[in-house]
């Protein structure tokens, strides 16, 4: 609509009836059957009981997923590793694969140096440049759940039973684990025996001697 001119502040040039006609309000009224259309007011929202003190945006939850520990470039499947701590410290061992938890799956092989299929943390391991051919081994069944502790079924104990120490804490390995070890070892030992001296190398333990400087050694 054309701007209304002002004579002075608050005083318009055109009268009320004049602007009514100009705006075409009569036409809108006629179009809607004699009454001016009223816009529907949006339903008043119920007054919330609680108004937070500050206008703070709720934090969106992080969608970041944790990754397994980054594998050092020197550690590849088939690498011979030296264990630095634990029951088998000093043993030279074959690396099989990295599990989803980030731990490394290793095996002695058991026949050669007594180290079973085990998990080990990358920080407690030194990688050597010796590699074993591991392509013939199937590792699909090994994951972190394989190594979970067997849950002991706790039956309801009577008073008497509570005082009897649990003698059923058997430390026997389930048979399927022993069989898995044999299967893996059969393949690996074949690959190892193909390389001269590798078997005795894996059977020997690593140790520091007098005058050894690990910071100058290459492994």
């Amino acid at each position: 609509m054309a701007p209304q001119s002002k004579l002075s502040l608050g005083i318009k040039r055109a009268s009320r009836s004049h602007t009514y006609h100009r705006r075409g309000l009569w036409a809108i009224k006629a179009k809607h059957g004699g009454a001016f259309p009223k816009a529907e007011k949006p339903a008043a929202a119920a007054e919330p009981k609680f108004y937070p003190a500050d206008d703070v945006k709720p934090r969106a939850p992080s969608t970041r997923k944790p990754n397994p520990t980054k594998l050092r470039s020197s550690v590849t499947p088939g690498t011979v590793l030296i264990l630095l701590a634990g029951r088998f410290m000093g043993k030279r061992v074959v690396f099989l694969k990295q599990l989803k938890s980030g731990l490394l799956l290793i095996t002695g092989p058991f026949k050669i140096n007594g180290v079973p299929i085990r998990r080990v943390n990358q920080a407690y391991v030194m990688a050597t440049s010796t590699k074993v051919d591991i392509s013939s081994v199937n590792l699909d069944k090994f994951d972190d759940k394989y190594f979970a502790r067997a849950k002991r079924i706790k039956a309801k104990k009577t008073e008497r039973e509570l005082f009897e120490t649990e003698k059923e804490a058997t430390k026997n390995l389930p048979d399927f684990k022993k069989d898995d070890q044999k299967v893996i070892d059969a393949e690996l030992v074949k690959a190892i025996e193909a390389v001269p001296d590798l078997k005795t190398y894996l059977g020997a333990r690593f140790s520091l001697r007098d005058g050894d400087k690990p910071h100058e050694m290459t492994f």
Partner: protein
Amino acid sequence: MVKGRTGQRVRLYVRGTILGFKRSKSNQYENTSLVQIEGVNTKEEVAWYAGKRMAYVYKTKTKSSGTHYRCIWGKVTRPHGNSGVVRAKFKSNLPAESMGRKVRVFMYPSSI
């Protein structure tokens, strides 16, 4: 010490000597100890050992957890000076009687 290790004894640690505490002429700061690692003679060689864990092992008259041996764990923090001496922080400060005695510098956490 590992329980009854009857097999081969392997040494997977480097020997170190505890020289004393970090200090100036007349003040000493016992939260940091100085350690001389065998075979390490320059600041550059210390880089390999940064972060490696160390253990000060000592014997006691009384038994705890079934053994007379006890240990204070610590780690190599940084080089000290130019000649291969190393600063170390232990879980609890080392006792003064440790000065001149041996400490074991392990090869883990490894980065090889």
